[in-house]
């Protein structure tokens, strides 16, 4: 097997540099010696069968995985050159720069406005006018503004599932992160809502680095620049998306993307 690191050489900045990352849940090894790089303004899709460690991996990038008891991690992940496990980088700071959208829409049981400004508020912005500005920009970026501008004070749970997910996206964007992690963001949505989110991802990649876990290979093929294929905790192959889907180097990747298993 050729070294997957060398597979995506281009001159973009490296945002995440994953080096020999291993992760255990108790005694079960969930990630096995991962080595790869995530480049600036790329959409990196992570595909693989259930239980292959895709979600674990993406949650490691913002250290959310550590909220699960009994997790043990070795190796390092350099974020803009700093090891995210280093004491000098506080986890709160990492998470404020690496936003996340979850599988199931998870707005707070608060108003739409309160949801969007949650991040800015906890990081110290109090000025009402500034918060209103952030709300408008974020909701516009998440293509939700027109639908909710007249009811910003309504409870977020009055929105449809797709709108809730875009609200969660707006909430993450309000933090002005550099990176957006998306853990199967459309798996709970209908096709139309899914198409909207995909359109948004295409738009957002101009400004953000996006890592997306997806179960749908069509989705990976449609929206990503790079695709990483995981199998049983190992990174089998990472390359330009087109290459993964047309001429993968590994037999297992080929079997998976052609639907022979998974």
């Amino acid at each position, binding site marked *: 097997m050729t070294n997957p690191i060398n597979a995506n050489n281009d001159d973009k900045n490296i945002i995440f540099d994953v080096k020999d990352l291993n992760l255990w849940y108790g005694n079960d090894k969930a990630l096995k010696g991962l080595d790869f790089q995530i480049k600036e303004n790329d959409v990196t899709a992570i595909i693989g069968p259930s239980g292959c460690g895709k979600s674990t991996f993406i949650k490691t990038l*913002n250290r959310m995985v550590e*909220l699960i*008891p009994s997790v043990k991690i070795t190796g390092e992940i350099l974020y803009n050159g700093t090891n995210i496990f280093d004491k000098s980088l506080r986890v709160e700071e990492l*998470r404020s720069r690496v936003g996340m959208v979850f599988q199931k829409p998870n707005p707070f049981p608060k108003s739409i406005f309160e949801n969007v400004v949650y991040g800015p508020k906890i*990081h110290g912005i109090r000025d009402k006018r500034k918060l209103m500005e952030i709300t408008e920009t974020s909701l516009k970026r998440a293509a939700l503004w027109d639908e909710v501008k007249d009811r910003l004070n309504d409870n977020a*749970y009055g929105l449809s599932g797709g709108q809730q997910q875009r609200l969660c996206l707006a909430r993450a964007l309000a933090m002005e992160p550099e990176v957006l992690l998306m853990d199967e963001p459309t798996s709970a949505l209908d096709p139309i809502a899914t198409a909207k989110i995909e359109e948004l991802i295409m738009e957002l990649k101009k400004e953000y680095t996006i890592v997306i876990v997806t179960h749908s290979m069509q989705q990976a093929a449609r929206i990503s620049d790079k695709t990483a294929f995981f199998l049983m905790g190992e990174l089998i192959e990472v390359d330009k998306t087109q290459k993964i889907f047309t001429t993968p180097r590994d037999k*297992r990747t080929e079997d998976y993307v052609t639907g022979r298993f998974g």
Partner: protein
Amino acid sequence: MGVEFMHERETKNYSNAPMNKSNMNRRILIDKVAKMLFLSSTLFALLVLGVLLYRIGTQSIGWLDLDFLTGKLSIFPEKAGIYGVLLGSVWLMLVVTPITLIIGVSTAIYLEEYATKGRLQTFIKTNISNLAGVPSVIFGLLGLTVFGRLFGLGSSILAGGLTMSLLILPIVVVASQEAIRAVPGFLRDASYAMGATKWVTIRTVILPVAIPGILTGSILALSRAIGETAPLVVLGVPTLILKVPTSVMDDFSALPIQIYYWTLDTVLTPEYANLAAATIVVLLMVLFLMNSTAIIIRNKFQRRY
């Protein structure tokens, strides 16, 4: 390559089993009997409550009036009022409520959100649950030893309040823990993923969602405290207090205590039974009010996620 998981599925076919319809009538009959059994159990409880309320209600007629509520205690039944006693109960609640809410909710937050899951935490949790089942008279003895004698608080409102707080703290802790645990994990995740600290997450996400449950449980615990007699008897709360309490260091009497003493003395003064009945009605009304408040709070903040 362990990717082909083709499990041989064991299939059982039940369609050949003969359906037994012959005892249908019997099953329907059993169903009816079961229903009657459960209904009569419920009715029995209601009946007992009804008799109790009727007895108390008729006994208190003519005794429960404004003068009774605003008058001071007296050894003469016609002149006796429970103003001081009512205030004693109010004072008691003023001590118990903040202590139990602050300590109880803080303990619950610590155990649910901060404490690392391990043996120590399991040990603490088990013991809190055990404490909730300890008879109140034992808490009374503890209160007498620690607050009454050791701290020299005697049988003051403060001593009574602290003792009652100990009594209901385990209930408040357990109720608050359950309310906090019921907050869905995805809300915590959303907050942590935005770089919120634990405390910010607790303050802005967990508590607002958990507070209805915490309040409901706490009010029910407080209504237990307002009706408890044994701890106060053990603490030595005096029989006849003519002075209306004005501070937490004053001696006091409370509604259930007064009911107890008046009932004891009915042999000599039969009218005390009427006074006790009237006091019971007042106590029941207070309890009813508190429980209604708990229900209203619970309904007002129905889960919205």
